[in-house]
């Protein structure tokens, strides 16, 4: 059961080992994990310089299964921890994998704040429209009417649309992907990681064990990659694409980079961070002494 940190020693240090997973065979999470590995390898990022942060849930276990530094914290609370880790050491790349419950249910308030704070982290939301690890309750993104053990008469709430919400809150990078289209997903992930600021990729992820509605084929029939004509620097276009979901005109659900416009980041606005990684800083003795003297 126990695993070790050993990974293939590769001279360029950008190889990523996959560890034993506890996911169900066929789970969409596998597609996400392998796209993530591909993206990181393509970007030539050293796993030692990455923090993978997760909360609790099936999605949130992703850090356990990939080479890198792993912060597996609390259900719903990985975002503030990840944001602060990035503030603490800007030399590291910080990637957060949340579930839809983790990221938008329990963690909803932190999602709002993270978008608005615009610290340079990458947020991959495994959106299976269900609570997987706790055996299948409705999540914020569950479809209206979705039936589960806890919602036997159907989910009564209006479904949460992560991409529209992120856009409206001011996110600079917003994308929608699908675990079943790894090629596209890899590219989305690369762009998101490269983006300077908070970047969200909401990823449709079939949960083969509990979500019998939003299956691979359900998504397959609906997703429609955005074409060349989509201008990801145009907010109106982005909004329109983000608002398009299943109840739409049958035109399908647009995937791809909906929006990509850099905005002033936290780092850019905080003088101290620009002086170097925070963990090298702190007050000098002289400064503190001065402060003490001021109290005389």
């Amino acid at each position, binding site marked *: 059961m126990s695993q070790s940190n050993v990974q293939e020693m590769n001279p360029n240090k950008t190889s990523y080992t996959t560890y034993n997973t506890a996911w169900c065979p066929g789970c969409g999470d596998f597609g996400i994990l392998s796209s993530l590995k591909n993206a990181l390898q393509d970007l030539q990022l050293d796993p030692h310089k990455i923090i993978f942060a997760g909360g609790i849930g099936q999605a949130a276990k992703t850090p356990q299964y990939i080479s890198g530094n792993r912060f597996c914290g609390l259900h719903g609370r990985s975002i503030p921890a990840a944001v602060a880790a990035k503030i603490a050491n800007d*030399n590291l790349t910080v990637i957060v994998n949340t579930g839809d419950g983790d990221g938008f249910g329990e963690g909803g308030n932190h999602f709002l704040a993270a978008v608005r704070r615009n610290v340079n982290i990458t947020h991959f939301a495994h959106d299976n429209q269900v609570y997987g690890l706790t055996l299948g309750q409705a999540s914020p993104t569950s479809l209206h009417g979705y039936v589960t053990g806890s919602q036997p008469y159907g989910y009564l709430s209006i479904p949460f649309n992560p991409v529209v919400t992120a856009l409206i809150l001011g996110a600079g990078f917003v994308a929608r992907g699908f675990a079943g289209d790894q090629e596209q997903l890899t590219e989305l992930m690369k762009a998101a990681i490269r983006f300077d600021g908070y970047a969200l990729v909401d990823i449709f992820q079939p949960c083969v064990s509990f979500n019998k509605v939003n299956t691979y084929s359900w998504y397959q029939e609906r997703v429609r990659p955005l074409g060349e004509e989509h201008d990801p620097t145009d907010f109106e276009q982005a909004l329109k694409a983000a608002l398009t979901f299943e109840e739409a005109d049958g035109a399908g659900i647009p995937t791809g980079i909906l929006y990509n416009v850099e905005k002033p980041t936290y780092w850019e606005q905080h003088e101290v961070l620009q002086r170097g990684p925070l963990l090298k800083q702190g007050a000098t*003795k002289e400064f503190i002494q001065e402060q003490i003297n001021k109290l005389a």
Partner: protein
Amino acid sequence: MFNILLGGAAGQGVETTSAVIEKILKANGYNVFVTRDLMSRVRGGHNFSTLRFGRNPVIAHDHTVDGILAVNQETIDLHIKDLREDGFIIADDGFITDDARAIMLPMTKTAVELGNPRVASSVAVGALIRLFDLPVEALREILEETLKPEHVEINMEAAKAGYESVTYEQGESSRRKADDTDDKSETSQENAHHDYSDWITLSSSEAIALGALAAGLQFYSAYPMSPSTKIMEYLAGIQYEANIVVEQAEDELAAINAVVGASYAGAVAMVSTSGGGYQLMVEGMASAGMMEIPTVTVIAMRPGPVTGLPTRTEQGDLNLAIFAGNGEYPKMVLAVKNQSDAFYQTARAHHIAQKYQMPVVILTDQYLSDGTATVEPLDLSLIEKVRVSASDEEALAYRDDPANQRGDEKFGEMKESELAANEYKRYRLTEDGISPRLLPGHPKAFVSVDTDSHDEYGFINEAAEARIAQMDKRMRKLVKLIAEDLTDAEQIGTAGSDIVLVAWGSMHGPLKEAVNELAKQGVNVSALVYGDLWPLPTEKIKAEAENAAHIINVEQNFSGQLAGLIRRQTGIAMTDSVLKYDGRPLSASEISGAVLRIVKKG
């Protein structure tokens, strides 16, 4: 020693006036102890400060006062009952009182004549200056430090008018009282040097901020909540010069989780709140315990439950600080005893958090956070920064040197072979429970932390053996802490006395004064004041309790939380209790009075 009460409505500048009086008294050598009694509102209502000062260190407030400065009518109405017979009242001549001690001045009239009714209180300040024979011109400098430039002159004018409106003679007995170094109510001669103008004025809010900076603070996050917010505001104000980041969180859950995340990545991090907000941090604290991440959390206590009395004082969160958390994890809880202690303890808390890789809770309260004392300048030479990495130049290169570990000292050898084989174990089983800690970014190690039960590498592991091994390992830290770092209660009064008082944190000052008062009345007591509370040091109480007829806990709460804790850890039960839970601080005379009553009863 002399005790002045200054009262007025919120928005009438009582806070500023109080600070001005405090400064001029100290500038003229007095040692001043100030408490602030506020209402939870921005304008109106009734707020007051008490300024107790003398020629020896003043370590506590008193509720009986020698002089009243009334900026509103309520100040007279509410507080005249607490005025000593030989005291004075300075009040506006528009207020109503037939008390013979009143000196009615045309405060408002003068202010209006000068062109701004808000300077009325400076008239009273001027009168006070004359009564205590202070140099009125020295006030200018203080006003320049305190007020906007355009307000200095008019306030000086008002003060001068006040100065002229009373006579040197009227202050004779007050001056004598203030300057009396043999004062029977003096609490301590230890630090007596009679001129305190070169000491500093400190609240525990500033002390905690400075102590954290001295220990190397880099990241601070909090959500506003009285009486803790001043720590954030102090640190936020200097963040660019102090090279730190201060971030107001979206809620308390974010604040604690941010501190955990920042600390994981390698920053020295702290969070503060009040007991109400700490309730939202309980899970994050437990996560720091489980993931073994150093964190320092300050609880500035106020009366609960929940919102309670937002701007007042209590010691009601000891149980919360120690026992809240699911499952069991090592943590340290300590309370600060006074404003300068707050500085040194905060630095110590950071060292302990780093050394043991665990959460530490610091308890203070509104009494110390909003209140200020004149204390010896803080001695920075006593404090080292916690070690963040082997060398400052290379903090980010994370050399694969075994010394490149977080903390204060070498705590368990790093296996070279582990690194060579990329086999770093974040949670390696060690004898003292402390595992070698690397920071993310190390070229040969992945640093994995987990709130699930995990193996030595930090991978999820559900095996019984892993749970037992890691649980034992974590808990062994407390064994080491008790052996190496725990400080027993401070002993005051006569050790081995028949009467033993126990208290904690901010009760230190009032209790010390009460012990002196009792001694002067021929009642010798032994008092133990706890700073470290969890794990609880037990040697002294066991020794003191052995032959004591009275063991009395003195606490600012309803149920006697320290008493419960002592009994839990030692079996020793209190024979009596002195408890106060109305949100107002317990004074020395209340304590000594209560102790006398108890002792007389039998």
